[in-house]
């Protein structure tokens, strides 16, 4: 798949997963790799970029399994971005669907 397209799609997936509630890295990567075969590792740079662009913030919570868990939380800016991306995605999807079926 085109890397730019994939990048955008992954970003949308990550942001959308956070709409319903905060998640920590492992939880998030597990959820996404349930649905698609990607290397979980590639999600961490995406998460980091989303944080740098202020679409998400992080906070730490102590965990029983090892080092503290880093939770990701959507910012207001992130919510708006997710909405915009989702609309664009739906338009794109509709267009692609129409084009590939005839």
């Amino acid at each position, binding site marked *: 798949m085109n890397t730019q397209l994939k990048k955008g799609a992954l970003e949308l997936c990550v942001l959308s997963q956070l709409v319903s509630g905060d998640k920590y890295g*492992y939880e998030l990567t597990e959820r996404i790799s349930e649905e698609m075969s990607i290397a979980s*590792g590639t999600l961490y740079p995406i998460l980091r970029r989303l944080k740098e662009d202020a679409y998400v913030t992080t906070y730490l919570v*102590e965990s029983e399994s090892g*080092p503290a868990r880093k939770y990701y939380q959507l910012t207001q800016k992130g919510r708006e971005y997710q909405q915009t991306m989702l609309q664009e995605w739906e338009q794109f999807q509709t267009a692609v669907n129409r084009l590939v079926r005839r």
Partner: protein
Amino acid sequence: MTKSEYMNALREKLQHYNRALEMEILEDYEQHFAEGLAEGRREEDIIAELGNIDDMLKEFSEEDLKQELEIVENQANQSNSYEQLYRAVVIEGLLADVEITASTDDRIWIDYENGGSKAQKMQYQFYQYEQDGIFYAGVKERKGTDRHGEFAPESGLESILDVLTKFTQFSSWSGVDIHLSVQIPAGIPVIKIENTSGDLCVRGIQTQELETKCVSGDLRIEDVVCKKFLGKNQSGDVEVSGIVMKSDEDTEIKIRTTSGDLETREISAARVSLHTSSGDVSAERLEAGSLKVQTGSGEQNLEDIACDRAELRAGSGDIDAENIRGRELSAEAGSGEVELQADMEVFEVKTGSGDIELEAGARARRIHMVAGSGEISLDLSHIEGASITSRTGSGDMNIRGYEVSGRNYNTSYNSGICQVSLITGSGDITVE
């Protein structure tokens, strides 16, 4: 491939990226492994899931690569990089023996070893994270293994098991074998270390502010460069050697212990304060603008001290100070004795029931001594000229090296360059 091989490869490749990124990704991966392993998954499965490292790195852009400028700066002054990244390092050892030393490069290195029983390995774990520019690392108790809290067994058997577990946990305290060694680069402004039952050793580090807190463990500090050191110990002993700070800057060394002994050697700062409740204090080769030593029932042993102003306070312990040079010395003991051999300008010495023995140097200008029921011995053979007041309630007074004659209960001499006033309640005054 094992986890450590994979992590090493990751670390190697991340070196080309800026440090904040490097640290964050390493942590993310460590966390990922920890979660996966906790779910009972195998290392190689987790590695397969995380995938190819180079693919992951493709997600980063050119901007994330370590800037040429940064590398040059790092070579010029290695302390810079971390100074900018972290404003503090906080280490919590809990029951581990902790050793803090200087890093040979500009990174923080940590070595955690848990060589204890299986139960202990299960019960304690290492953690590290960073937040708001502060790097945290240490040992903590795993949740769910603390059986000291609520005690509500369902059956008699469980209650026995619970007691047994408590017992074995307790007995394992004596055989604690957890070591945490941390290497910290120079230039991080604040370093804080807390420990409970483990010993703490800090050696050769450079920082602005060092703070240590120990409960029952001993504290040892050697050759540290900083501007402020605060040490707090409860029952553990403290041994400090080689903290040299500039006395013309706002520098401070403050050490408190409850029952532990406190021993210092070769320390200097604008302000030095040593305080114990029942422990002893001993100081050797100390330099300070102002020095405060306070003990409860412990003794004070001071040797080779240079300070502008010294304030020594003891409850029931003795004060023994030898070769003290400076301007002003004030010593007070309750029931303890005070023995001073000092070359200061001004002396204020008071005791309750303890004796006073003073050998003053040539610098003495004013000596004021009051003893309740104790004896006073005063050696004035080095004095060139001073105003002296010496008063005791029922004790005797012995004056040496000063040419006066007579034997009185209430005598005032004004002879030559010295002004001496000696007063005792019922004791004898002897002037040799």
